């Protein structure tokens, strides 16, 4: 099947009190199970690949197990919700991707100073290599900056157990605890052994006889440092870290978190177990100093294997310096391993082979291909995606007004694909919601040019609203185009405050109401597939001297309510098609394919077409029509 939900059969078992049972699950599901076993009472977060399935799993578990789990508007709100829950004595969890912790950092760096009540755990899934992100960022540094404990699991069983223990540690020390995972662990599937569920937690109660604030900060800071010393002792006895050696090896490998798997594999594949001491560092903060000292005491040369930054490498250099030991320590910082990108098994194998002076197992000679470049496959909008129509209409509006050099500011979401062919329409993209402020400055400094800010619905709720207020307040000539597909689309259609189809019993907060309340003088809502009407309204907005906002609205093509809904399919009249490729070059729907006959004309792949009919007007020869679909597109 094309679409399979994350919630497979195993999910029911994943929620059950069946200690010892073994299930095949995702790393993210293992973390969710750890939170369930800890008796989590409030779980929240904001969707972001690669972290999303953790909270999705908990949201599915919540009604059955009787706890609270829901998506927050952004990560700071999520962290603040967890804080309030912790102040009430409830165990609370915040789930986010690495950049999400930037959003929540303001709160984290205050709450760390407060004696919290219920265990508060933050799970950050970092994305080494930035496969689904704008950057690669090592959130272990946040633990160091906030002076809080941080655990890094290396497999599914540890992911479950460390998450569970993180709640206990947080509660006993009264300090938030960070669990750092990475993409490979998050989206790795393997066997997980379940542990028992925690007994029912006491009913939450907020103690108003004490105050909950870090101000004045010096005494709380001293207490925090004392907590961290106690954390070091607690974690030393937790058994998360490991030393594999005899105490005589000259060579050493120090591996942090998930990258430990590649270190261990490299040692075994090269067969150098008797010459190399290996340490596993799963406690990223505070680092296990006794273990590091034992290791540094006998090794002369060390390879450090870790994801994203040289956090552990730098700590080892400092530790060796403090011990007065002369040890050659190499890794991402020294260049023994690449300073950027995901840790890969082949890289670790080669670096280790180089260090110990053995040759890696006979490497296969690279075969020669006649065409060594395999055609690139850039990600593109799905068939039936509303963003394609909106960009097409925007390009039409520019053409209609004869604008040669408009500025189009992008934001974070599927619509970021507007950077790529066929539209190539976006010029900037930075952080969530940044389109608003960036466009404000561009409009100020480029008064002779039209400035458009493109932002998705979920991104607008997340961090766009303050910038929207700014644009309205300063009366800046920015045309804001809200690409509203009614869900957080790029992470898998999670609901947000504007998701009418998920809003049973909730208040829906329409974007147009927000814009009107901000004082936008021109606000319009148009269906994304009404290409001509949408282009006309965009033209009208672009002609305004002040702020204007257009909501282009059409549910995400991957929304369950949209899939298989349409009973028509596009067809190209072969006699009318002249092979101009406008439908491919300007619209780029994946359903348009070269005709099998090799005529150079285009035909419709009926399996790919979802019947949205947005392409009705894109053919200059009017060769596109629609017919009834014979069979349901399953």
């Amino acid at each position: 099947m094309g679409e399979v939900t994350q919630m497979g059969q195993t999910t029911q078992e994943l929620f059950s009190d069946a200690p010892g049972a073994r299930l095949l699950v995702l790393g993210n599901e293992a973390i969710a199970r750890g939170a369930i076993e800890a008796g989590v009472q409030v779980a929240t977060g904001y969707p972001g690949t690669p972290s999303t399935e953790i909270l999705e799993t908990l949201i599915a578990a919540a009604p059955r197990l009787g706890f609270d789990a829901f998506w927050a508007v952004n990560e700071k709100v999520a962290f603040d919700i967890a804080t309030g829950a912790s102040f009430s004595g409830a165990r609370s969890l915040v789930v986010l991707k690495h950049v999400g912790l930037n959003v929540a950092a303001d709160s984290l760096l205050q709450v760390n100073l407060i004696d919290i009540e219920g265990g508060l755990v933050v799970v950050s899934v970092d994305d080494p290599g930035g496969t689904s992100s704008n950057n690669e960022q090592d959130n272990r540094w946040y633990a160091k900056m906030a002076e809080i404990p941080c655990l890094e699991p290396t497999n599914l069983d540890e992911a479950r157990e460390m998450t569970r223990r993180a709640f206990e540690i947080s509660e006993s020390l009264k300090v938030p605890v960070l669990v750092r995972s990475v993409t490979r662990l998050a989206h790795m599937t393997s066997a997980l052994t379940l542990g028992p569920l925690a007994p029912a937690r006491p009913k939450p109660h907020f103690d108003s006889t004490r105050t909950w604030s870090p101000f004045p900060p010096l005494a709380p800071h001293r207490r925090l440092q004392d907590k961290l010393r106690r954390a070091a002792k607690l974690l030393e006895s937790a058994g998360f870290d490991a030393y594999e050696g005899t105490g005589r090896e000259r060579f050493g490998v120090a591996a942090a978190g998930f990258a430990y798997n590649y270190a261990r594999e490299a040692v075994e594949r090269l067969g150098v177990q008797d010459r190399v001491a290996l340490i596993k560092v799963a406690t990223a903060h505070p680092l296990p100093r006794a273990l590091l000292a034992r290791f540094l005491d006998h090794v002369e040369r060390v390879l450090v294997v870790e994801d994203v930054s040289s956090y552990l490498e730098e700590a080892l250099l400092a530790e060796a310096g403090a011990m007065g030991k002369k040890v050659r320590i190499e890794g991402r910082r020294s260049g023994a391993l690449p300073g950027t990108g995901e840790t890969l098994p082949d890289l670790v194998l080669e670096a280790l082979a180089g260090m110990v002076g053995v040759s890696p197992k006979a490497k296969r000679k690279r075969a020669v291909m006649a065409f060594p470049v395999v055609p690139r496959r850039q990600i593109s909008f799905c068939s039936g995606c509303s963003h394609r129509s909106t960009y097409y209409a925007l390009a039409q509006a520019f053409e209609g007004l004869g604008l040669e050099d408009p500025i189009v500011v992008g934001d974070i979401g599927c619509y970021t694909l507007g950077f790529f062919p066929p539209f190539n329409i976006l010029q900037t993209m930075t952080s969530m919601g940044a389109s608003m402020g960036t466009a404000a400055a561009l409009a100020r400094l480029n008064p002779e040019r039209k400035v458009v800010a493109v932002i998705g619905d979920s991104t607008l709720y997340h961090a766009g609203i303050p910038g929207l207020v700014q644009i309205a307040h300063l009366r800046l000539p920015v045309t804001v185009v809200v690409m509203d597909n009614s869900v957080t689309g790029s992470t898998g259609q999670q609901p947000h405050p504007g998701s009418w189809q998920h809003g049973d019993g909730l208040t829906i907060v329409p974007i147009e109401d927000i814009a009107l309340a901000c004082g936008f003088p021109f606000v319009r809502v148009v269906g994304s597939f009404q290409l001509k009407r949408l282009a006309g309204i965009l033209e009208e907005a672009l002609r305004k001297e002040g702020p204007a906002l257009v909501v282009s609205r059409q549910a995400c093509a991957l929304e369950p309510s949209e899939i298989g809904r349409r009973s028509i399919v596009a067809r190209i009249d072969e006699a009318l098609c002249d092979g101009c490729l406008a439908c491919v070059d300007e619209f780029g729907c994946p359903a348009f394919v070269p005709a099998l006959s090799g005529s150079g004309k285009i035909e419709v792949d009926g399996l790919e077409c979802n019947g949205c009919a947005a392409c009705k007007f894109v053919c200059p020869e009017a060769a596109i029509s629609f017919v009834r679909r014979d069979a349901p597109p399953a």
Partner: protein
Amino acid sequence: MSPSLPTDVILAGVGGQGSLFASRVLAGAAFHQGVSVLMAETYGVAQRGGAVFSQIRLGYGVSGPLIPRGECRFLLGLEPIEALRRARDYLAPGGSVVLNTRIQLPLETKMAKIRSQPGSDLATIRDELERLEAGRIVEVDALALAMEAGGPATANVVLLGALSCLPGFPLTGEAMERGIEAAGGKAYLERNLLSLAKGREHGRRLEN
């Protein structure tokens, strides 16, 4: 072969082809058969019309889910261009390839400027796989066989059927059936099982 020896399998396809479902079937089959399994998948925005790539490591002796380059013995190409992309980096000499014959051209290749890009027709891809020293190359018109089973959606399962009867492949047909049941999609269970059978029949016919 003994299931305790590690066997690496790669699935290569395009977002929307059901390669995640297919990889879950394989992992579930291994789990059912008592074979240790580690699987890494591409997820999220990376799958939107883009290249999808799953790595599955079967058997003990591995701790990470990523397959070393040039050591993969079984490659399932749900889409031929994607099969070539992964074969170039990962296929072991003599490794087997199951190749769906239906090409899905990347958008940029379709666009007028660069549509003459080489390496995007089946004959070229077959030649390239041979240059890469592929052992068996089993071509499957998976769509046609899926249509026989009731509809286009189970082409992925047809391909799994062909994969599962390659010589040396460590998972049994019965385990594959259990893998399908465990991966969900109850509404399509019968059609999936029929598609698996059609794929196996096709694979076995080629072996004889």
